[in-house]
């Protein structure tokens, strides 16, 4: 898929673990790992909003388009 999820990069920058993020964003670990590994087919705006709020970043920092 040409859309790459850079969630792990942002998490490393903010020095945040997956467990911590899942607690703060209120998502299950399974769903977050689906997102992190790039298996996700779609992301809700509400999820994206929560992640951006917790990681203090823009959606463009998490998602990237590669040809």
């Amino acid at each position: 898929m040409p859309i790459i999820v850079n969630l792990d990069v942002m998490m490393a920058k903010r020095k945040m673990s997956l467990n911590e993020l899942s607690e703060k964003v209120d998502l299950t670990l399974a769903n977050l790992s689906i997102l992190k590994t790039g298996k996700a087919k779609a992301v809700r705006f509400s999820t994206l909003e929560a992640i951006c709020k917790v990681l203090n970043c823009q959606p463009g920092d998490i998602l990237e388009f590669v040809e």
Partner: protein
Amino acid sequence: MLQAASFWDVDNFYQIRMYFYCLSINIYLYLLCHLKHLIMKSRTNLVLKILYILSWIIFVGVCIEAGGSIFSAFYFLYVGDKHARTFWVGNDLSSLYTYGRVHFFAETLLISIASVMKACIFYLIIKNLDPKKISMSQPFSKEVGRLIFNISYLSLFIGFISLWGVKYKEWLVEQGVKMPEIQYLRLGGADVWLFMGVILFVLAQIFKRGIEIQTENELTV
């Protein structure tokens, strides 16, 4: 003797009979309540189990038929003309055998292929309907989708083979060969098989789209 006579006298016998009546009514009510509860609780599972048992019975029957067709085809090709009149379930194919061994082989091959395909359908059904394998919590799985697709392909294949067999038989009759009826040759209902195949194919396409939507829904974060 006296004791026995007193035990079986009218009053005692009436009491014993009443006990039996009460006991049987109690058992009946107990079973009714619990069976009703069981049926209400897992009607789908019960239906699936019954279908599974039925599929096994049909599978065994169809396998015997397929095996019989193949065996008799090869046996009579080897043995010869006079035995061909007892082909499988008493069909008289001696006229066809006399007309030409190649035609005999072709017709019996079509019958055998149709029988084997029917056995394949039921094999797929019993393989996938296994109560230990099938999960009712997630029935819209890829395996079930593939099963419907495979059954539809097999049905279409049986339909075409049967149609071909029927046309071939008609041609042979036109040539003056005495042939048994189509239903005795197990080639009847070609149109039904084709209809079933097409319907199942359409259903399988819809099912496939449903599975895709479900997967997409599951992978939406």
